[in-house]
């Protein structure tokens, strides 16, 4: 027996995987999943790697599993979309060593472009899904998931959400299990070669496995739990929603599901029989309610209805059920918001500033630089998913045609380019597309906390791997007009952008290469404003260090925040910014 440790859900999953004897971990960084693989990589006797994207990560994981290793694969919910292709067929092949996929959802969209529910994937792919409600459960369920994966010959998904992944709760860790016997790989084309002749057989086996999983989900072994309370109100819930329900409706009877796919239908039906009204409480989804209905149970709606979108909270549940909701002080009206912003000295800032001067249609992408969409830069027309900047820019070109005067630009980060921008760019080149693609190469995967990627060559353990040369890669694809520009040099950025945008009939790739300011934390002597005319140009950069005096309208620079990058100094026509 070991001490209690305070672990986030992510750390707990990593610890459990190592303790269960997982020796291989793969993933792609994405909030709120990122720390899981980082924590796993720090464990003894394991190997972990960041892959270029979630599809690759799951395929590497499946290969490792086929080869006999217990394997952990981590991703955020939108990463599951990318990994969906191997996921659906891995559910046919099944596994060698236990294969566990951590899918971390982000209801409320704290750091995501949508709030989809990974339950649907588990259901559609016919894989087992476990739903921890705190770090202890994340640990226990993730540990159990490896043996379940081997038992049912199926990848097992552990579904976390931001409030599980990033909430630290005490965990009683166990001693590491004796490492399970290796499951040596033996050639078996009927299991691993999913051509139609073999896949048809595996499909039938898959469906029989689902029945076995259903039986297990309803058995006493399954991690479901009933809290008996007032028999008038029965609530079915899982994950973080369970914690909110427990607090908001302390008197209710609760069926807390640890396994949500397949639904333990018999357990739900017998729970429903014992309560007057049965409710389902879940976040930003109808997966559970639909599954409960499909099990033949009538689901009641609380008097005020539950929110259909966004994160839940005890207060939202209190309100839904017509319970008293605590009141705080009245909000102070008109408080200025404090949205996130590009950091002082961010090398992306100048690129967005110059693009906005070109009146271009700008397709953005996923990363810190999505913040270029916000005022005062306001330099983005669209942002949808990883890699879409490049392909959507091509689509805009096709729609606008040669007569439209507006230049079309795609803006993408280095890691995002490796993730899926590369295949988009190949498609554009192949189809003789035009336009301008700006690759903002800040030498890291910044938004998720500065992870390595193929274009900085840093591996997850912090050691050097192989660094790919971005400009040579782009050239090799067949882009004729590619150049690397220092984004801190305003004149150079302006000239490069102007030229690329002017040449409307060709494809230009501009690589703006300069490290993220959080990577090196190089702080130089701050600038100050010596003789301001109040023209306000420096304010249009949206640098958090630059402000203006309300009375005089003149600009000033906060010496605490300024890192001395000198971008604003280059924009000041009056040479008023000095140091």
């Amino acid at each position, binding site marked *: 027996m070991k001490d*209690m440790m*305070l672990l986030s859900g992510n750390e707990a999953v990593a610890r459990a995987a190592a303790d269960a004897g997982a020796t291989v971990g793969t993933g792609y960084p994405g*909030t*709120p999943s*990122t720390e899981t693989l980082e924590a796993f990589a720090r464990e003894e006797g394991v190997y972990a790697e960041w892959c270029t994207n979630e599809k690759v990560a799951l395929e590497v994981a499946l290969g490792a599993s086929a080869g006999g290793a217990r394997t952990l694969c981590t991703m955020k919910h939108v990463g599951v979309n990318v990994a969906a292709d191997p996921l659906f067929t891995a559910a046919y092949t099944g596994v060698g060593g236990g294969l566990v996929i951590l899918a971390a959802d982000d209801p409320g969209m*704290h*750091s995501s472009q949508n709030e989809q529910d990974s339950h649907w994937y588990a259901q559609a792919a016919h894989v087992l899904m476990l739903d921890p409600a*705190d770090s202890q459960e994340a640990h226990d369920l993730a540990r159990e998931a490896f043996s379940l994966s081997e038992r049912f010959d199926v990848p097992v998904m552990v579904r976390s959400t*931001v*409030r599980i992944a*990033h*909430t*630290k*709760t*005490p965990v009683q860790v166990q001693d590491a299990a004796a490492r399970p016997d290796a499951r040596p790989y033996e050639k078996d084309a009927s299991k691993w070669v999913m051509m139609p002749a073999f896949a048809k057989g595996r499909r039938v086996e898959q469906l029989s496995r689902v029945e076995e999983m259903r039986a297990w989900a309803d058995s006493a072994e399954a991690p479901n739990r009933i809290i008996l309370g007032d028999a008038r109100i029965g609530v079915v819930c899982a994950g*973080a929603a369970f*914690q*909110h329900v*427990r*607090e*908001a409706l302390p008197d209710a009877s609760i069926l807390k599901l640890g396994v949500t796919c397949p639904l333990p239908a018999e357990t739900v039906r017998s729970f429903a029989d014992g309560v007057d009204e049965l409710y389902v409480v879940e976040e930003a989804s109808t997966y559970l309610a639909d599954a409960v209905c499909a099990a033949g149970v009538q689901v009641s709606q609380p008097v005020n209805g539950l929110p259909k979108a966004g*994160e*839940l*909270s*005890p*207060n*939202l549940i209190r309100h839904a059920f017509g319970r008293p*909701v*605590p*009141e*705080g*002080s*009245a*909000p*102070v009206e*008109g*408080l*200025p*918001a*404090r*949205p*996130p*912003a*590009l*950091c002082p000295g961010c090398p992306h800032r100048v690129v967005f500033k110059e693009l906005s001067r070109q009146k271009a249609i700008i397709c953005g992408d996923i990363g810190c630089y*999505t*913040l270029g969409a916000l*005022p*005062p830069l306001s330099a983005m027309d669209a942002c949808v998913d990883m890699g879409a900047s490049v392909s959507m820019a091509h689509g805009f070109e096709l729609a606008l045609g040669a007569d439209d005067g507006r230049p079309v630009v795609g803006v993408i980060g280095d890691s995002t380019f490796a993730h899926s921008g590369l295949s988009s760019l190949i498609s554009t080149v192949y189809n003789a597309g035009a336009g301008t693609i700006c690759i903002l190469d800040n030498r890291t995967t910044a*938004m*998720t*906390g500065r992870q390595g990627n193929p274009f900085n060559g840093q591996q997850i353990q912090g050691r050097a791997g192989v660094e790919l040369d971005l400009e040579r890669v782009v050239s090799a694809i067949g882009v004729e007009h590619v150049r690397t520009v220092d984004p801190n040099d305003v004149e150079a950025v302006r000239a490069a952008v102007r030229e690329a945008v002017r040449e409307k009939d060709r494809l230009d790739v501009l690589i703006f290469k300069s490290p993220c300011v959080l990577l090196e934390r190089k702080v130089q002597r701050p600038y100050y404003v010596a003789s301001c005319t109040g023209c306000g140009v420096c*304010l249009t950069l*949206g640098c*958090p260090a*630059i*402000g*203006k005096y*309300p009375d005089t*309208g003149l600009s000033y620079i906060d010496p605490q925040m300024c890192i001395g990058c000198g971008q604003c100094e280059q924009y000041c026509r009056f040479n008023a910014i000095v140091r």
Partner: protein
Amino acid sequence: MKKILLCGVGGQGTILAANILAEAALASGQEVKVSEIHGMAQRGGAVSTMIAVGHDVASMVIGEGEADIVIAFDKLEALRALPSLKRSGTLIVNDELIKPASVLTGKAQLPDDVDGLLFQADALVVPAEATAREAGSPKSANVVLLGAAADVLGLSAEMLQEAVRSCVPPKTVEANERAFQAGRRFAEEQGRDVR
């Protein structure tokens, strides 16, 4: 169970303060949950860490009127957090205000009387940065604020101090201990009812 909301601006040390609180709670055998937000929201935006501590801890989310204690690292964020505070709750505020970009560029304005609004809310305003500097640990404003809150947190001061020792970088232990004590003393000198 007590719910404690730490709010501020990215980079102010709310997460370290939360870890100290959580360690102290764990060491004293209480249940604890600490919920943080990472990613997009961190980039200079408003951040908050939610802590639930005590017995029968369930939800890690703090909604309106649910916080027993709000420790605000910034005065504007303190005002923003007011609806979260219970009517009988304690509000501890760092005497600093980082202006948001919209205010810096003249697109929005701060309320006319921030200090008056905080006074009305019965806030204990702590000169945490100055106190930290005096204690010889200029970066420990977060620990000063924890010290100021020590008596209302429902955790023993000894446990908290032990947690400060175990959570801060080894070289800064003594300076942080002084910062913690200075914060505590400040709150006591203000004659705050310590329940």
